[in-house]
């Protein structure tokens, strides 16, 4: 009874993991060549660290994660606070707020492609209202704006997930704490600062980690909308890995990127866990 699942885990997770570590030290290609694959030591890693596009991909990915995480978490917390208060038609608002989570990312991307359209998509229509006719922002084609556009799209696409977890967290804060704070004359902001926020500490640490890790895996949005461009401005680590390993067929080299990615994600998650867990306890 244990065997089927164990075979799947071994064959599809543990096996490939060990293989990618091995490949990262070889010149393995996607399609086999007449010359046999050989062990080349740490050449792939050396090449990777010497490639400016690799560093750009890291910078882009970190930039994306550092911006999208706080943006998305505050959107989610804000939405959760609204939907946890005594608003009329709460069930309706809750169902509406969940919608983006249900839409496939490819669908969301095509909807946002319309919103981003130049020169007269909806966002540019609003922009022209302020900046005057004939002005527009090239949301996806301007290297300094493209990643921020991807941030906006991504935050919209997945905030309901964190919102639902915040809602669950809010419902676990005992109501008497709020009653007591009210009796002591605490204003709404103070109730949030001294009751709600400390009550959400564990939820916050958990969401911070999963949102960051999720952000580091950015791929679909970028692949469909910008193909990593313009000028590499939206190339992320996973997109770089995909390009090198699949499009350029350099499996050995891309495996080095994969091993690096695995180590980086694990290190970041452990680091966040340590720092934020301790901070709360002190």
């Amino acid at each position: 009874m244990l065997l089927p699942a164990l075979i799947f885990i071994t064959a599809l997770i543990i096996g490939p993991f060990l293989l990618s570590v091995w490949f990262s030290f070889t010149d393995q290609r996607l399609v086999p060549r007449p010359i046999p694959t050989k062990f080349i030591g740490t050449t792939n890693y050396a090449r990777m660290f010497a490639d400016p596009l690799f560093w750009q991909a890291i910078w882009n990915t970190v930039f994306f994660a550092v911006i999208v995480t706080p943006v998305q978490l505050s959107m989610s917390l804000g939405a959760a606070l609204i939907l946890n208060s005594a608003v009329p038609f709460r069930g309706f608002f809750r169902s509406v707020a969940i919608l983006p989570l249900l839409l496939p990312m490819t669908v969301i991307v095509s909807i946002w492609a319309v919103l981003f359209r130049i020169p007269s998509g909806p966002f540019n229509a609003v922009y022209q209202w302020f900046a005057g006719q004939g002005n527009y922002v090239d949301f996806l084609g301007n290297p300094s704006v493209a990643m921020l556009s991807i941030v906006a799209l991504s935050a919209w696409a997945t905030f309901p997930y964190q919102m639902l977890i915040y809602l669950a967290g809010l419902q676990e804060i005992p109501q008497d704490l709020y009653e007591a704070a009210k009796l002591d004359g605490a204003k709404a902001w103070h109730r949030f600062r001294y009751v709600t926020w400390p009550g959400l500490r564990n939820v916050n640490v958990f969401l911070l980690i999963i949102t960051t890790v999720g952000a580091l895996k950015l791929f679909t949005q970028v692949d469909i909308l910008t193909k990593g461009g313009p000028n590499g401005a939206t190339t992320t680590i996973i997109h770089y890995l995909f390009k090198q390993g699949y499009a350029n067929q350099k499996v050995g080299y891309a495996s080095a990127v994969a091993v690096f990615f695995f180590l980086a994600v694990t290190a970041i998650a452990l680091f966040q866990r340590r720092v934020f867990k301790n901070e709360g306890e002190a």
Partner: protein
Amino acid sequence: MRIPRDAVLPSLFAVVLAMGVLLPLMMTLTISLNPNEQDIMVSMGSVRSFIPQVFSPQNYIEVWTDPVHPFVRYLANTALITFSTLALSILFNSMAAFVLAQGTLPIRKPVMILILATLAVPGESLVLPQLMMAGWAGIVDSYEVQIMPGVANAMSIFLFFQFFSRLPKELIEAAHIDGFSFFQIYRYVAMPLSKPVISAIAVLQFLEIWNAYLWPVMVTRGPEYRPLSVAMSAYFGTNQAAWGNIMAFAVSMAIPVILFFLILQRQFIASVMSSGVKG
């Protein structure tokens, strides 16, 4: 309806939130119902692009009957892949979890630790070796190759394990005394009790597989086995001028998921709230 005084401001924010979600979707629906491409381009960004002016099924008919991009085939592929993955994943992972939680095997602990350790490996970093292996096995561009990675799911084993280890000891012993074999206890006692876990896993994996993109891009070559998500991006890439059709494609792809959600709404919210699988 009277709104209490403290609820005025939250209500306003709730309306803003709902508009932020609904306006892009209204626009999608409006464009999908407009058969006139030129009119779509002209009205884009104006109020007219958010409120349907015409109700024409033409774009939908074109999308569903397109011979180059067989929508119905894509839909069937996606449904087949999603439901096969769910069925196998729930069967195999619940069996394994039951052995690990209730069995007497001496190596249970190291096996469980090994399984949990795989949770740390992001699926994205495994796609290349998995693709090589699929090539060696000769199953690139097939249904199997899209089903198998989803079945290997440590999170689903973990969720079942948590549930099964909390089953009352008396219940298992009573079934044992009644002459049930270990497998029968799993089949007739444990599984019928685990409906909440099953639906939680089903909902989360449904979204994950239905929306999968990176892996299907790498392992499908043509319409025969291609799922909707990849087809959508290909369609989007090659028909940039036909926004009406792209939006009709988007709506057609979103509706099955929304229906699935409406059926399982309670379990859905409960499962997302209680777990933490998707990033």
